[in-house]
């Protein structure tokens, strides 16, 4: 297979949402054929420029996946499968991209706040952001406020994402904003919040930078913030 063919196959499998060879794709009949992980490994072995892999093999097909989702041809599981493909590929490509002097779109620290164990929405956002090229540092669920503040202090991420599903735990987000202010970190990080009980109004009330109703809005918001 030529380098070009491998890239085309990576792109095809991202659209199909096949991380590994054992995965079935959106269409039937691909199980057993190499998935994104195997193909990226092959591309790296053949010394394909990692930037080409990212642009032609991952970014462009993810745009197609987004369009398919917009047309309701794809549902959330299809979108996540493709995002996971990109995430898995980025894990393999990161060291090579650093060597080539290519940076990620930025570090994104994400977590569900203290007292709240709900993490499905947060996980979907984390997978999608990784698939969109961000370096995601996921602290998990029920994360104490002090740990979040310490992480921001240590990692210096440009973005912090906070999630809560309960009306009782969403208030913790306000404590986190105050903690960031107190520690002199507020201006170093953009804070995005989300979760069923939260709203634009609540984001304004606690002084967060944005409220995102889902992963897609988070990606759009980040794009706008970095434009």
């Amino acid at each position, binding site marked *: 297979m030529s380098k070009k063919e491998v890239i085309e196959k990576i792109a095809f499998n991202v659209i199909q949402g096949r991380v590994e060879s054992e995965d079935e794709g959106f269409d039937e009949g691909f199980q057993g054929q190499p998935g994104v992980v195997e193909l990226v490994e092959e591309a790296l072995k053949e010394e394909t420029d990692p930037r080409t892999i990212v642009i032609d093999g991952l970014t462009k097909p993810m745009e197609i996946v987004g369009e398919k989702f917009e047309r309701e041809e794809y*549902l959330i*599981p299809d979108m*996540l499968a493709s995002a*996971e493909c990109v995430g898995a590929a980025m894990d393999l490509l990161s060291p090579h991209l650093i060597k080539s002097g290519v940076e990620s779109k930025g570090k994104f620290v994400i977590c569900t706040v203290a007292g709240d164990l709900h*993490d499905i929405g947060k*996980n979907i956002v984390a997978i999608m952001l990784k698939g969109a090229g961000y370096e995601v540092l996921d602290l998990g669920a029920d994360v104490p406020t002090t740990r979040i503040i310490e992480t921001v202090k240590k990692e210096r991420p440009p973005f912090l994402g906070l999630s809560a599903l309960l009306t009782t735990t969403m208030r913790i987000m306000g404590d986190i904003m105050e903690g960031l202010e107190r520690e002199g970190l507020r201006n170093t990080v953009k804070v995005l919040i989300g979760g069923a009980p939260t709203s634009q109004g609540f984001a304004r009330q606690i002084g967060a930078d944005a409220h995102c109703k889902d992963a897609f809005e988070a990606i759009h918001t980040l794009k706008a913030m970095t434009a």
Partner: protein
Amino acid sequence: MEAFRQGVVVRPYERLNAEQLTWLDQASMAILEDPGIWCYNERAAMLFKSHGARVWEEPGGHGCWRISCPAGLIREAVGQAPSRFVLGARRPENRLLLDAEIPRVYFGSGSEANVWLETHLDKYIRAEDGTTERLIPHYTERRGNTALLSRAAKLCEFLEHLDFFIRPLNIQDPEITPDNHDVNKFFASLNNITKHVQAGLTTLEALPHVIRMAELIVGGREALIQNPIVSFIACVFKSPMQIVEDTADKVFAVVEAGLPLVISSSPQGGSSAPIQEAGMVAQIHAEILAGIAMTQMIKPGAPVLYGSVPVRARLDDLHDLYGCPEFNQYNIDCVQLARFYKIPCYSTAGVGDAKVPGIQATFEKLLTHLFMAMSGAQYIHYAFGLLDRTNTFCPVQAILDNEQIGKVKHTLREPKVTPDTLEDMVGMVRKVMATPHRLFARHARKAMHAGDISSPFRFESKAMEDKVIAHALSHFDEIENKPAPRLDPSVVDAIYESIPGLLPGLRQGR
């Protein structure tokens, strides 16, 4: 058989235990012996007599014979009815496989409503602010006619969860007379739908014409017997316990023609039968068994359905009350009794008192759609579009019923729980637990693509306004714009050449 509609095979819900079934059957036999049957058809009375029943003419010379049937006679005759047969269709994949020993559930339309209910959306402006607009459904009634029946048949062709077609609308065009009623209603149906078509007969004289029409469509007499694209309904019993003269003649004719027949009875608990479950079911079972026995005495092995339509009276006006618990109780018992005798069951669901689509209609329909599908009745009629009991057919309601029945069928699908699927699932859990986010969403795809995962309610509203009717109406408009699956023009020509009484406009579906 190569192809047939899949319906849904359920694990039947049963109300009666084995002992109660036997007691009910014995009670029915006791009723058939004493007081027996009041029979207003001499040929039928003599048929029973020739098979060993005690028959005598009622005094007064009113043409009424009393029949006292011993249990052995009924059981022996009914035992000859086939457990399994096919109801044909213009398209082979639309045929139905009825097997009394397999609870494969099919849903279809029914009744012969006089009214077609048209749905419109009227724009209203909120008085308080003068700007907020809302579209509110508004309904107008039209008299049923051949053009509307044609539209109903075409609509039903495109309702994916409708398995068979019983004309839901009475045709009342000025040119329609008792003599040409049957040929026009069968032609309007057969020219617009490729699923099985079933109806009652208005006149016995029309039967040869209807059979000829069906033969011309399938390619001859033998082809029709192999693929009976039409079948018939006969309410041979007028409850309580009376065999009707002209319907009995129709039973003779249909059975002798070799086509499938529903022996249907519809007593009303509280007026023409006891309202109590035990009494209602004992009586209707007696009536249906006697009707089925009659078919087998005419021709052993005749394909026949156990047609149970027991209803309850409203106690405020003695009209039928369909969407109530007793309806389900009566009907589930009948399904069990049909299964006890290994005869496919024609049952009923989806009727209510609601006059227009909405919350009441949804409640009444779901209450019976779900329970009757759970009972494992093979052939559930009345299930699409009926409102105001059985007096109105509303196409938008039929579209809503299609959605509801689809969800009911999906709910009752056989569980896919096998050692193989469980091995896959354990592997999936292990795989996902090894990932950072422990999210199963990606692994939903296989089930999603296999059609195992249902879609959200098709006509849902996303905002704070109920738009179900508006969405259903727009879906109806989409179907109306599709071409009808018309018969081949040469077949239509042949039908018009050999069958009298067909309305000229119907040829073009008008």
